[in-house]
């Protein structure tokens, strides 16, 4: 006769209780993992959606007249193209994607357009990011036309497009943005535009995407501005407030939603395991008393009960992880681009029995702390 044998026999005997406990743990683990998967993939999906809304910061020389910029007159101070590379080398700044621009309003092909020379997008050193859809790497000698310009001039890909003294080939016609100046921009390679405007090595703005925002900070704009201006003191950081704050709020909300769902799953599991263990302990009250009357130490009885909990919780957790992943993949709540990594799943399978034992401990300990005669139900009262 061994304790292991006794635990296994009891599990087989009270199989409905064992199965109910296992099902509860499996359901809780499945819910937990599905919530983690849904949370991670939703955060990722909405991050990409928000990112695709476009850059949320514009960095200009400190003396740039914002009123003239709003009037699409980009005359004013400029800054070295090297500033873009200086930003990308800084790990502490709260932005990751950068596109250096030299823009100037010109007349061409009978239209007023914003000639925009762009550097290919760069990302901060040490990060790997997919390119922004609104950042264009324009080949040398080509231009990308904003939708309004293409409509006004009737140009299409392959046509020639004359700007000042140079003829470019139309490489792309961009989708309609629905706003000025985006729809009246003509994009070209930065160095082509610098040569055309006779401003070599100069840019007059950097578009950036602030996306390293701590979720619990309210003054996100101030922090972003401070982190960039500490690297480039002679620039002004102009946030596109609505995009920046929407992105930040969305992240905070998604994290809170995920935390709330995880906490709810954990609380439900704790209550269920506690209840089922309590029911099991109550139904085995006389057994506990008998074991104590036979001289079994309290800690051995405790270990026997906890071993049972650990056994069913381990099986339940493993089952739950499989069910949770299948549920997530079938739910189509969010594309499965980012899911809980295998190491976290392994950790979940290990931690679940520990948590189940903690939740199951109070009813068992409560019974063991009472006098054996009381537990046994023999004698008055």
């Amino acid at each position, binding site marked *: 006769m061994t304790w292991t044998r006794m635990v296994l026999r009891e599990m087989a005997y009270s199989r409905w209780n064992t199965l109910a406990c296992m099902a509860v743990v499996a359901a809780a683990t499945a819910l937990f993992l599905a919530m983690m998967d849904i949370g991670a993939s939703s955060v990722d999906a909405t991050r990409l959606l928000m990112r695709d809304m476009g850059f949320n910061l514009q960095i200009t020389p400190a003396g740039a007249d914002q009123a003239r910029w709003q009037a699409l007159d980009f005359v004013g101070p400029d800054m070295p193209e090297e500033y873009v590379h200086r930003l990308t080398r800084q790990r502490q700044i709260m932005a990751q994607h950068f596109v250096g621009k030299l823009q100037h309003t010109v007349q061409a092909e009978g239209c007023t357009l914003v000639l925009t020379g762009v550097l290919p997008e760069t990302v901060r050193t040490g990060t790997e990011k997919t390119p922004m859809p609104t950042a264009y790497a324009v080949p040398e000698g080509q231009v990308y036309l904003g939708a309004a310009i293409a409509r006004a001039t009737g140009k299409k890909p392959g046509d020639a497009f004359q700007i000042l003294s140079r003829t470019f080939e139309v490489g792309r016609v961009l989708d309609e943005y629905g706003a000025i100046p985006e729809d009246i921009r003509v994009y070209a390679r930065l160095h082509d535009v610098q040569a055309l405007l006779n401003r070599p090595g100069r840019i007059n703005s950097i578009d950036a995407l602030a996306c390293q925002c701590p979720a619990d900070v309210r003054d996100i704009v101030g922090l972003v501005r401070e982190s960039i201006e500490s690297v480039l003191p002679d620039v002004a950081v102009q946030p596109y407030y609505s995009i920046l704050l929407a992105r930040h709020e969305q992240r905070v909300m998604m994290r809170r939603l995920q935390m709330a769902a995880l906490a709810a799953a954990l609380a439900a599991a704790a209550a269920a395991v506690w209840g089922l263990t309590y029911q099991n302990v109550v139904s085995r009250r006389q057994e506990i008393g*008998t074991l104590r009357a036979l001289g079994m130490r309290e800690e051995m009885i405790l270990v026997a009960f906890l071993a049972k909990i650990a056994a069913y919780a381990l099986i339940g957790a493993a089952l739950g992880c499989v069910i949770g992943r299948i549920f997530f993949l079938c739910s189509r709540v969010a594309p499965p681009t980012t899911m809980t990594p295998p190491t976290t799943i392994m950790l979940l399978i290990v931690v679940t029995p520990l948590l189940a034992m903690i939740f199951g401990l109070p009813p068992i300990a409560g019974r063991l702390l009472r006098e054996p005669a009381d537990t046994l139900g023999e004698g008055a009262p």
Partner: protein
Amino acid sequence: MIRLEQVEKHYRRGREIVRALDGVSLEVPRGKLALLRGPSGSGKTTLINLCAGLTLPTRGNVFAGQECVNGLDGRRRTALRAQRIAVVFQMFHLIPYLTAIENVLLPMLARRPDDCRARALELMDALQLRHRTSHRPHEMSAGERQRCALARALLHRPEIILADEPTGNLDEESARLVLDMIDASRAEGATVLLVSHHPVNHICPDLEFTLRDGHLQ
């Protein structure tokens, strides 16, 4: 030897204090069998529980051999039961998911893993349970279950046997087998305190006590 000195056991039930035992003193010398009689609710089971250290007295002292049971901490009281005391309950208290032989071998869990299987089979033979070794309690009659509980109690050759109405639910044949086995243990030197409110025909006790309303008559 079992000795109680001015033992009181009070329970609180709401605002009421229940005096289950009130100033009880008795002694059962080593190797003797004492019969404790009394009507239901007189405190017999409480007295057995006190002797086994399953509960503690409100006042007074309980001795099992030279050990003052209520002076020991919980761990040592548990060890005392594991090594020297056996309790036989009226309601058997067999573990429902274990077979008869496993129930008999259950006390092994509290001690070093000696091979007690031969002793268990010997006891089951003596109690006419050999054919029931692989049966679970619900597959056995009341008499067989009580004999199984007795075999479990005697497995480790206890010095003190506390039997609480061991024949209360049994037919005459089963009662005779149980009492004969208890008597044989006394013959081997065990001290026995046997509780019964029924007449006991098959054995001759060395001492008799009667409890009434928590007082020894």
